[in-house]
């Protein structure tokens, strides 16, 4: 610990703060991505996915296998929030023409704020995120053609889109903390569930892992099937359902480090 104190001091005392440099570089990369990839893209045929991998046999065969099962996909911006953004877009899109489930979800969302305030999140800010979240849900309700257009518009408006992500991160954190006893087993290292939430769930741009997916899908009572496309053996694209054994109502494509939306 003595060593670490000295190290910490020496970096903090130099004129240029290392954290700041890393952040700056990260911001430059973010900006580039921001200018080239929309937050949520248009529906594309899976042929477009195949054409990304003409030079890569493993991925090409998997893209073809995927095209047997799915017709379309929709890209999301790789900014660390892609799981939450893809999940919420796909789910709301699904709810547009399912009035019963839409109402159930709306009620669950409405009640979620109280849980978060009870857990100690500051009411003032939670309320703001919650209000925006409800506004998005209300705007896409009504099952009209306009709902799909509105959903796409809201999710590409950074203000709305990111607030939805923040709020889903809070719901996920809230669920993890409430079921801490269970989720503790999934957390590596010495961290408590609460610490894990502070470091890996609540901050923006933090990527999602299995534990986030399990918690999010359980908290929203929604099955999600994730198709894994990687360098692993075989030509199939492995499927995992979260929570285990559920009937998937949305489908996501995972490529190392990133999630997009899939349409059967």
């Amino acid at each position, binding site marked *: 610990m003595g060593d670490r104190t000295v*190290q910490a001091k020496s970096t903090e005392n130099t004129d240029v703060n290392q954290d700041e440099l890393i*952040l700056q570089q*990260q911001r430059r990369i973010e900006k580039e991505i921001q200018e080239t990839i929309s937050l949520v893209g248009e529906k594309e045929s899976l042929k477009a996915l195949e054409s990304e991998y003409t030079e890569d046999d493993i991925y090409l065969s998997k893209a073809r296998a995927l095209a047997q099962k799915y017709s379309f996909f929709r890209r999301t911006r790789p900014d660390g929030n892609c799981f939450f953004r893809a999940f919420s877009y796909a789910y709301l899109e699904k709810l547009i023409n399912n009035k019963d489930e839409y109402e159930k979800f709306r009620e669950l969302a409405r009640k979620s704020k109280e849980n978060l305030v009870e857990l100690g999140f500051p*009411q*003032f800010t939670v309320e703001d995120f919650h209000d925006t979240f409800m506004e998005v849900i209300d705007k896409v309700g009504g099952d009209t053609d306009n709902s799909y257009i509105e959903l796409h518009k809201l999710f590409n408006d950074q*203000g709305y889109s990111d607030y939805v992500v923040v709020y889903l991160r*809070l719901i996920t954190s809230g669920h993890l903390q409430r079921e801490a006893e269970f989720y503790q087993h999934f957390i590596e290292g010495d961290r408590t569930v609460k610490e894990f939430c502070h470091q890996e769930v609540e901050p923006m741009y*933090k990527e999602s892992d299995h534990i986030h997916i399990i918690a999010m899908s359980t908290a929203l009572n929604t099955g999600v099937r994730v198709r894994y496309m990687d360098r692993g053996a075989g030509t199939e694209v492995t499927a995992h359902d979260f929570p285990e054994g559920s009937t998937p109502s949305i489908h996501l494509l995972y490529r190392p480090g990133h999630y997009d939306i899939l349409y059967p």
Partner: protein
Amino acid sequence: MSQPTSSALRALALEYKSLQEEPVEGFRVKLVNEDNMFEWEVAIFGPPDTLYQGGYFKAHMKFPPDYPYSPPSIRFMTKVWHPNVYENGDLCISILHPPVDDPQSGELPCERWNPTQNVRTILLSVISLLNEPNTYSPANVDASVMYRRWRDSKGRDKEYENIIRKQAQAAKVEAEKEGIVVPVTLEDYCIKTRARPAEQQFDMTDFCDDEYELDDDDDDDEPLSASDYEDGDDSGNGES
């Protein structure tokens, strides 16, 4: 994200308005420059019954363009002798650490920035940190050593105390020049507070810092007062 996002402006305007309408005890805020929402001047009153009693400490808060996804930074403009304040006034507090992987801090159990933190929660943490420095990761090593000596001698070694009281006194004189009356009793300190928001029991683990090893006592929300200095390293709710 070099351009301020609409979220940042919106969040800041909302917070600013709310703090004007419903000031929180212990501090006041205003804009450094009326046409820039991203730089605030905050004035923190030294809490009564602490070494900082009577003091009036000014600081500048700078918000990043992607606030509230990233935290602001705080620099004291008033001289503050404190283990967690650098020579130039920069304040080091874990709640303001950006949520990037920090090789120095590893996976230590610190409160980090998240988008629900806000000016209120930050400033309340700062007021707590004044009273309860984190000596595990000092920004001012001399102040830290001196503070520990004061604490371990149960206040018999007065060097730390004297410096703080002197600074608080000097700051008070400055405040008076500006026509500001610094509240020195608990009644005055709290008097302007209407309807305290229900967010007071927030997690005070945030002044644990990089090297801070804290036993996970999030539930420990016993209020600390000046008489609790003996075990000042414990995390607790420092509001007084």
